[in-house]
């Protein structure tokens, strides 16, 4: 035989799955929410998204190439996800320079200081977001009203998010019933017709993305379902105990970044647990912390903090929660 043949151990075939396929699959799943954000917030949404994505790419490429002197990994699609998620977490009138700082913190500190994709402990987009929230609290919490293409980027009419309205109102001693009456209806909130960050407003579009990712087996149901169920149960119990002080499950699920967080942020491969059991524990943790921060904490919104806190527990969860081994129960 003249031809040379390969000799390698089994398996001799591969599924063809790749990091790129999964990453671009997530990007595809984010498209409905992205398009809807353009619809609600007009030019501003477009400028914020473009700036966030471009600067994430730029920082990933230049830090890897010139600082770390490694082969840049921008083709794997993870910088694109970080960019879009970062934009999803920003108001549509955020100044460009703040967005660029957010991208630098997300990619530089959140991701590359840990060793790049696969090694970071905290979700990079959330690291960027929380950094901005603490550093620029005014700009990060002035939300343009969803006026479609009427929304101006430079001089937007701003208003508070439903969560902030409730928080401030309750602090002032207003009754919850009066406050809820001021808010958009549940249907409007589900469709995204309310103030908020770019990507968090449109629950319907986010759920469409979730269905796509489940169908494509990019993620499993464990994390999103356990987060949403925990929030529903926990806020439901609070609501039943005192309906005048605590809003109900529908309010908590449809407002703020809960769906965005549960579907796209908490499910980040790198920063979530490996086993199904671990994922459920992680999801329950996020659900409880979210409600605790929202209801009892100083901030009106708690999803980002909840996810980041649980990110920190992931290594511990991976070490201590083992999958059910085959043949283990009969010993």
């Amino acid at each position, binding site marked *: 035989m003249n031809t040379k043949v390969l000799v390698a151990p089994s398996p001799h075939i591969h599924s063809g799955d790749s990091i790129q396929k999964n990453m671009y699959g997530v990007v595809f799943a984010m498209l409905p929410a992205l398009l809807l954000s353009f619809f609600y917030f007009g030019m501003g949404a477009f400028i914020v998204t473009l700036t966030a994505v471009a600067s994430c790419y730029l920082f990933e490429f230049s830090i890897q190439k010139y600082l770390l002197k490694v082969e840049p990994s921008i083709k794997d699609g993870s910088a694109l996800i970080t960019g879009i998620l970062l934009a999803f977490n920003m108001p549509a009138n955020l100044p460009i320079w703040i967005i660029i700082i957010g991208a630098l913190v997300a990619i530089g500190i959140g991701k590359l200081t840990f060793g*790049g994709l696969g090694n970071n402990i905290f979700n990079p987009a959330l690291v960027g977001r929380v950094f901005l929230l603490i550093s620029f609290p005014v700009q990060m919490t002035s939300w343009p009203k969803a006026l479609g293409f009427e929304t101006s980027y430079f001089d937007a009419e701003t208003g508070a998010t439903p969560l902030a309205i409730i928080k401030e109102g309750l602090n002032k001693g207003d009754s919850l019933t009066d406050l809820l009456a001021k808010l958009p209806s549940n249907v409007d909130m589900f469709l995204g017709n309310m103030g908020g960050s770019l990507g968090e407003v449109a629950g319907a579009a986010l759920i469409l993305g979730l269905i796509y990712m489940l169908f494509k087996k990019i993620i499993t149901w464990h994390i999103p379902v356990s987060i949403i169920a925990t929030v529903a149960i926990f806020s439901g119990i609070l609501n039943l105990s005192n309906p005048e002080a605590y809003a109900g499950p529908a309010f908590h699920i449809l407002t703020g970044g809960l769906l965005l967080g549960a579907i796209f942020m908490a499910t980040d491969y790198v920063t979530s647990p490996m086993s199904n059991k671990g994922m459920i524990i992680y999801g329950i943790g996020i659900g409880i912390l979210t409600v605790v921060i929202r209801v009892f904490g100083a901030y009106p919104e708690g999803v980002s903090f909840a996810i980041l806190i649980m990110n920190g527990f992931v290594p511990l969860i*991976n070490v201590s929660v083992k999958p059910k081994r085959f043949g283990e129960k009969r010993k």
Partner: protein
Amino acid sequence: MLKTFSIGGIHPEENKLSAQSAIQELPIPQIATIPIAQHIGAPAKAIVKKGDVVKVGQVIAQASGFVSANIHSSVSGTVFKLDEVMDGTGFRRTSIIINVEGDEWLEHIDRSEDLVTEITHTKEEIIKRVSDAGIVGLGGATFPAHVKLSVPPGKTAEVLIINAVECEPYLTSDHRVMLEKADEVMVGTEILMKALGVNRAIIGIENNKPDAIAHMTQVATKYTGIEVCPLKTQYPQGGEKQLISATMNREVPSGALPIEVGAVVQNVGTAFAVYEAVQKNKPLFERIATITGKSLKNPSNWKFRVGTPVSDIIEAAGGLPEDTAKIVGGGPMMGKALVSLDVPLTKGSSGLLLLAQEETARKATKACIRCGKCVSVCPMGLEPYLLMVLADKKEYERLEKDAIMDCIECGSCSFTCPATRPLLDYIRLGKGKVGQIMRSRK
């Protein structure tokens, strides 16, 4: 809903290209190279020497110990020499090389096609015949069959499970045996049941073979105690523990044998070989194999004599395609890559697969993105990503604690990994070392 095993599993592209091709007989080779180690356990001891004249079916190497198997001549002719020859595992092993002259069989072998249904032998006689005939597990593991039939004292077999899953992509030899030799398989199953003293047998077949399920179910009605169990197509269902889980809903404990839960598993091809050995006096020197590949002219199924070179079966199927990059003995998930076309086909050769570069070339290893897909596909509930890291760091104690020895090397993790990490390569390394440590402790 169709049954399947309890944890994990994957569904690779089936590619059963040769499923419709009836079994043909491969011409007898001019020179047969018969290795004395074609099974798990001690190699057999050669009892012929250069110049000896042998007949088809004659013992040429004797089992050395309980876990070993006789080797019979598959051809008639003169022993040319005993030599170290590279076999399918890539190692040089002693082989008996025979110059073929004619095709003269031992007289007591019944070569007729007549079906013999009446089982006249006792339990002990059956086990002796199976042992004498050198029968090994024909699914690919080649574990001597008589060992599994000898139930250890204190244990009882309840059910015989016939493994007709053929979960490896591409392979179709078991499928063809069921379509063409269903009655023989049934009688073989009855013989095995008698040897084990059980009155129930389950034949597990995946539902990607609806014709085999229909045919076997219909034939099974003529026999008592044999039922056909259709299974959801899911790899690695042909793994012994997975098949028991799928058909009986019982989990064999970690480190234990199937008999612990009352089951004995035999391959469908083994059942056919047992039929031939017990009813027809025919030892195991020929079997069915699939020759297949996407570029191959004629993917097909062949009955071959043990010792036939791999090149013969490739020629019969239309010659080696130009784009062949890897020659695999067995299926694409668990088969072994062969180093040459001169390697002889043996008792364990269930198939030969020719893969092209784009189908089999490995891609660059990327950083683990911790997606957890390896954990969710592992049929043993292990954490392949972790085992790989621990094996790389030589953390043998933790590997043992994290149940690395439970790994059945099915390759589902490496197959699935989006970062194309060689998970199973590292797990094998770790298993080798941990196994060594565990043995030295005893």
